[in-house]
């Protein structure tokens, strides 16, 4: 088959500049679909940030968990006079018995020590390990030693009942490097005893070849007790606390619905008849508001009214924003200002408006809130969780419309007679906290929360209605008084 010839060139030439007008409905459907897609993209962004927030908090919680685990595992120093014996080094310095050891136990141990020393003196025998047995919960600590030199005890013993093993010889640094916990049978390392259980471990330890050959001090590290994280705290639940928090999230102005819809003007507004549809006809479909960001800072205080119930309040500054597009500007002042809808309750003239190219704007609200909520503690350990709900009185500060391209002047609506916004609106709050507490006094918490305006933020006489809702993820620091 030959390539292009006269036939093809003729066809191509005929259709090169050919034009035909499609029906008008094609554009209207394109416009509607593109607007829907943009709103969807905006929603997806918000959803993305929510997921990001949730994932970030999960990661932070994991990091806190890992850090806590490591603290317990590695960083908690072994209090040698509590958990282990002082080493008996080659120079013959020997450990003592704690002052609160019972004399009965001392006698028993002394007998064993004498037996060990006797064995050690015999040339054919390998050095014999010393055994320390710690009965923690009754502060009954028994140490074996060839001397009876005592050391003052520095603190209370751990609740856990563990056996710590110790052998003689070498410095403790050497021992730490030589002896690996992993080299021990776990049954030995984590052996727990009943309170009054008395076991002679010497024969057992002697049978462990590894220990016998090392001929060195063995400091068994304190075995991590993960239950520490979830242990009941012995805190006083009538504690007051004060805290600081900050959070971020999304804000949905919820102007859809009601008589307002998504149009610039209320359909029943008396001045709508004066509206010049020929020059401003596209105004009505340009005012779709989509959710955007929100953030807050607050000072909080609260009180445990019972072991499970808390009440909390505070003062909070919050800024909420939504995004919209408009093709109108207001010419009331010298420079054209951003215009989204009529926000002047008492006087408004359509002649003050001018059509413009569609522009994107940021619609921001600033509030001071006074929340009060009741929380129920689901569990209260080092890591705890509570759920809460309550109300908040939001004091309106201002509403700012800002052209994102910077082309038009911002429009600021403050609290006052002409403002369509309520000076105070009431919100319902639901939320929760996942917290981590340490040192009896400090708590760090992640508190996701959802709030919705019950009264709406607009006055009765305003020509549009808005019942915003917002979702927050906050970080809270509390100090228990």
């Amino acid at each position, binding site marked *: *088959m*030959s*390539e*292009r*010839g*006269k*036939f*093809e060139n*003729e*066809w*191509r*030439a*005929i*259709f090169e*500049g*050919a*034009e*035909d*007008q*499609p*029906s008008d*409905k*094609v*554009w209207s*459907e*394109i*416009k509607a*679909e*593109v*607007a829907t*897609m*943009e709103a969807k993209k905006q929603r997806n962004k918000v959803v993305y940030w929510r997921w990001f927030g949730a994932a970030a908090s999960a990661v932070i919680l994991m990091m806190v968990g890992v850090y806590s685990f490591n603290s317990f595992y590695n960083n908690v120093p072994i209090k040698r006079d509590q958990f282990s014996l002082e080493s008996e080094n080659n120079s013959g310095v020997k450990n003592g018995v704690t002052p609160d050891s019972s004399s009965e136990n001392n006698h028993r141990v002394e007998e064993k020590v004498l037996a060990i020393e006797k064995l050690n003196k015999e040339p054919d025998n390998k050095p014999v390990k010393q055994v320390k047995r710690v009965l923690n919960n009754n502060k009954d600590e028994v140490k074996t030693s060839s001397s009876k030199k005592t050391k003052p005890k520095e603190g209370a013993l751990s609740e856990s009942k563990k056996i710590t093993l110790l052998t003689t010889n070498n410095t403790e640094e050497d021992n730490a490097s030589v002896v690996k916990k992993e080299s021990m049978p776990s049954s030995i390392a984590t052996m727990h005893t009943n309170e009054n259980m008395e076991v002679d471990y010497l024969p057992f330890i002697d049978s462990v070849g590894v220990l016998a050959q090392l001929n060195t001090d063995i400091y068994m590290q304190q075995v991590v007790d993960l239950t520490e994280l979830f242990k009941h705290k012995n805190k006083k639940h009538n504690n007051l606390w004060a805290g600081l928090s900050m959070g971020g999230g999304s804000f949905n102005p919820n102007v859809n619905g009601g008589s307002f819809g998504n149009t610039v003007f209320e359909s029943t507004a008396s001045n709508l008849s004066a509206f010049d549809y020929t020059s401003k006809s*596209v105004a009505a479909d*340009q005012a779709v508001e989509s959710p955007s960001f929100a953030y807050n800072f607050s000072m909080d205080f609260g009180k445990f009214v019972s072991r499970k119930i808390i009440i909390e309040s505070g003062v909070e500054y919050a800024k909420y924003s939504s995004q919209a*597009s408009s*093709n109108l500007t207001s010419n009331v002042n010298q420079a054209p200002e951003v215009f989204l809808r009529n926000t002047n309750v008492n006087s408004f003239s359509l002649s003050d408006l001018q059509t413009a*190219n*569609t*522009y*994107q704007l940021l619609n921001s609200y600033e509030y001071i809130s006074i929340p009060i909520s009741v929380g129920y503690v689901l569990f209260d350990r080092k890591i705890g969780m509570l759920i809460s709900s309550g109300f908040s009185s939001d004091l309106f500060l201002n509403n700012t419309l800002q052209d994102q*391209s910077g082309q038009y002047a911002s429009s600021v609506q403050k609290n006052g007679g002409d403002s369509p916004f309520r000076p105070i609106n009431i919100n319902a709050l639901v939320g929760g906290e996942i917290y981590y507490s340490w040192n009896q006094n400090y708590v760090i918490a992640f508190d996701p929360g959802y709030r919705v305006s019950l009264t709406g933020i607009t006055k009765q006489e305003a020509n549009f209605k808005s019942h915003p809702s917002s979702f927050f993820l906050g970080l809270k620091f509390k100090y228990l008084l």
Partner: protein
Amino acid sequence: MEIEKKLVEQCKKGDRKAQQEIYSLFCKSMYVVCQRYSKSQLEAEDILQEAFIKIFNNIKQYRGDSTIGAWIKRIVINTALNSQRSKLYMFPMTDVEALENENEGDFSLSKFHFKELLAMIQSLPEGCRIIFNLFAIEGYSHKEIAARLEISEGTSKSQYSRAKGLLRNMIELEEKMSYERAR
């Protein structure tokens, strides 16, 4: 060109008015393209609508490597091909050799209005209509068409040959009828 660039920039910011202007600028020519690939005006409008939605949703990806007109046309053709893709499996095969070596010496379409020719193209079977458009009007080679439609080069040639034969017959018939009418 400068106006087009400015409009594109405004479209990238989501300016609805600029979108409308871009649409007004290109919708007429693109509508003809859509009609060439479809069987009816209704189908052509659907393709046009779908293509412009894609254009506005993806306009941020336009980097100015080609003219905006060429970029838009590419999307319109791709949309048209996608909408016809299912029909491409039903290509009937014809003998390539039978229609070769035609004498094109006195061939001319100057007597026809493009809408008459458009009607002829629309009356072609699905497969050969698409290949005729791609080869004769868009200027793709059979190799490119074969790669694009995932068919063999031979199939592309067969289909084009078939389309060409059918169109020739239609043109001859139309010429005969006009001659009869003139008498």
